[in-house]
């Protein structure tokens, strides 16, 4: 590969044509990430747009072929970094599916709590950013305090905030601390009031509605044809949710609704995300009740935070490593990545905050995957963007971009 100099060459027709070429991005405050759109605009109307992606391509799939399984979890963090715990859990569940590990109920419910908190955090960012792009900064700064609390909960559970590397194959690295449970309770207590205020600010706000209704619509048929998933597909009126269609992590035990929209425009996407926040809140409530019930029936449940059959993937407690020979050997084996898994081929999907996040893993029995492919929802639905925005206004194109919730990390892998 040789380095080439790219000189700017104006196309001949660029002087004669009536429309304007506008470079939106790669670094622009309105794109919320590193991606470029070369737009042809006529006045304020978007005629066509060509997205360029790959600015932060980090070759995760190639790197994953040379990493032991536990070292791939931090790679998944960096896909959709707004809801990293869902990516982490999805990856752990993929390995568990490959190894036929059944996680205990309490672990499932703890995972559900973390995943739904992540979904709330992700949707809060997306919705409040839509509000920012329509000119309302207040909601953004207000709900960010609660996103901060969610990050504090992650911090109590795993020690980090944005790129979490949370959980392990079979469960969690350690039990939730007392402070973590208290912070979850604090969130459950205070969040509804804030959320209702946020809704009161925007949901029936005349200016917001005028701005969003009819902007960037997509029909259900086109959305399906574009393989859209998640809130963007549901906003178009298709009730497909992996949590219901192929339940994982005991989602079948929970009672929740799938909110759907009708027109698939910015307002519908906003409302679907908004309603999903409430559904996630309900799920967390149920999960907390279920865990309390489990612990009341059998106090020994309090100490269960990973599946015992996954102990080949679970680092022994530090005090055992220092005092027991066997634990030290296991610790060393795991850290050196000398744990081999069975050959097999597995596809596992979780409902990420943006849609169906799939892991296609081929193992040949080695210590690393033979091939790992991430089905990244952003990458797949962003290709519909030119079709959605062409013919609309430039300002609609901006809010469409933020309401699609395109995350550069997930887009570029």
């Amino acid at each position, binding site marked *: 590969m040789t380095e080439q100099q790219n000189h700017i060459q104006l196309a001949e027709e660029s002087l004669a044509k009536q429309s304007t070429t506008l470079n939106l991005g790669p670094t622009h405050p309105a794109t919320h990430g590193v991606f470029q759109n070369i737009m042809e605009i006529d006045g304020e109307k978007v005629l066509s747009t060509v997205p360029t992606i*790959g600015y932060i391509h980090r070759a995760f799939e190639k790197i994953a072929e040379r990493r032991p399984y536990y070292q791939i979890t931090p790679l998944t963090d960096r896909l959709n970094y707004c809801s990293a715990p869902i990516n982490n859990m999805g990856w752990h569940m993929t390995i568990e599916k490959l190894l036929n590990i059944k996680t205990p109920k309490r672990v499932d419910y703890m995972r559900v709590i973390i995943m739904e908190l992540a979904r709330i955090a992700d949707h809060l960012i997306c919705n409040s950013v839509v509000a920012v792009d329509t000119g309302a900064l207040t909601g953004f700064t207000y709900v960010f305090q609660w996103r901060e609390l969610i990050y504090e909960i992650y911090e109590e559970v795993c020690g980090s905030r944005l790129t979490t590397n949370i959980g392990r194959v079979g469960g969690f690295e350690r039990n939730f601390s007392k402070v973590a449970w208290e912070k979850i309770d604090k969130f459950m207590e205070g969040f509804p009031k804030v959320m209702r205020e946020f809704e009161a600010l925007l949901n029936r706000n005349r200016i917001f509605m005028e701005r969003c209704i009819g902007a960037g619509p997509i029909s259900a048929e086109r959305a399906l044809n574009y*393989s859209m998933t998640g809130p963007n597909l549901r906003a178009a009126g298709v009730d497909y949710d992996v949590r219901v269609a192929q339940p994982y992590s005991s989602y079948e035990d929970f009672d929740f609704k799938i909110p759907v929209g009708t027109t698939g425009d910015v307002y519908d996407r906003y409302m679907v995300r908004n309603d999903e926040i409430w559904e996630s809140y309900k799920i967390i409530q149920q999960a907390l009740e279920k865990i309390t019930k489990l612990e009341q029936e059998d106090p020994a449940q309090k100490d269960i935070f990973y599946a015992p059959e996954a102990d080949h993937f679970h680092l022994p407690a530090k005090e055992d490593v220092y005092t027991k020979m066997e634990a030290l050997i296991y610790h060393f084996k795991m850290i050196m990545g000398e744990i081999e898994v069975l050959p097999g081929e597995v*596809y596992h999907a979780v409902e990420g905050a943006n849609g169906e996040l799939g892991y296609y893993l081929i193992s040949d029995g080695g210590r690393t995957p033979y091939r790992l492919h991430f089905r990244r929802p952003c990458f*797949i639905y962003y*290709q519909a963007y030119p079709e959605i925005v062409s013919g609309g206004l430039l300002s609609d194109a901006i809010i469409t971009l933020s309401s699609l919730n395109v995350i550069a990390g997930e887009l570029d892998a």
Partner: protein
Amino acid sequence: MALTNEILKEKLTEKFGEALTNWEEPYGMLAVTAPAEMNLKVMQHLYDDDSTRFRFLTDLTAVHYPERKGEELCVVYHLHSLENNVRLRMKVYVPIEKPDVFTATQLFSGANWMERETYDNFGVNFVGHPNLTRILNVDEMDYFPMRKEYRMEDPTRIDKDDEMFGRGGTVA
């Protein structure tokens, strides 16, 4: 009648006979291998048939098997019938010297970028694709990085040999 893996297998065998091979069901998902020139026919049939209605392309990617002579590249389609809630994995093997596969963009608009990504990483030539150019890597790249012959590490290093990753290999 609800569509299950068995019924789906029966229907496909009835329609395409011996052409479809390698029926498997790893972890509950039906998987099948189709001849390279038939990939579109099978997908179109699954799309149109009222009892299957596989109208959602979940994923499209490729795998490189250097030791399978004559069929080094494997293109993998994950199809989903949302109404029946059944998934299907379809594989197509092509030789690396002539990796031609028909494009699915006419059937699924979403296949456009997925095929571009697969081309970018593996060099699979999707015949009939409207704009088969690189998407994630730089345009000037002159190799296909996800193929197995391109190693992540400096090839002179012996401490990063395959053996370190549980795959035989040689240590000098």
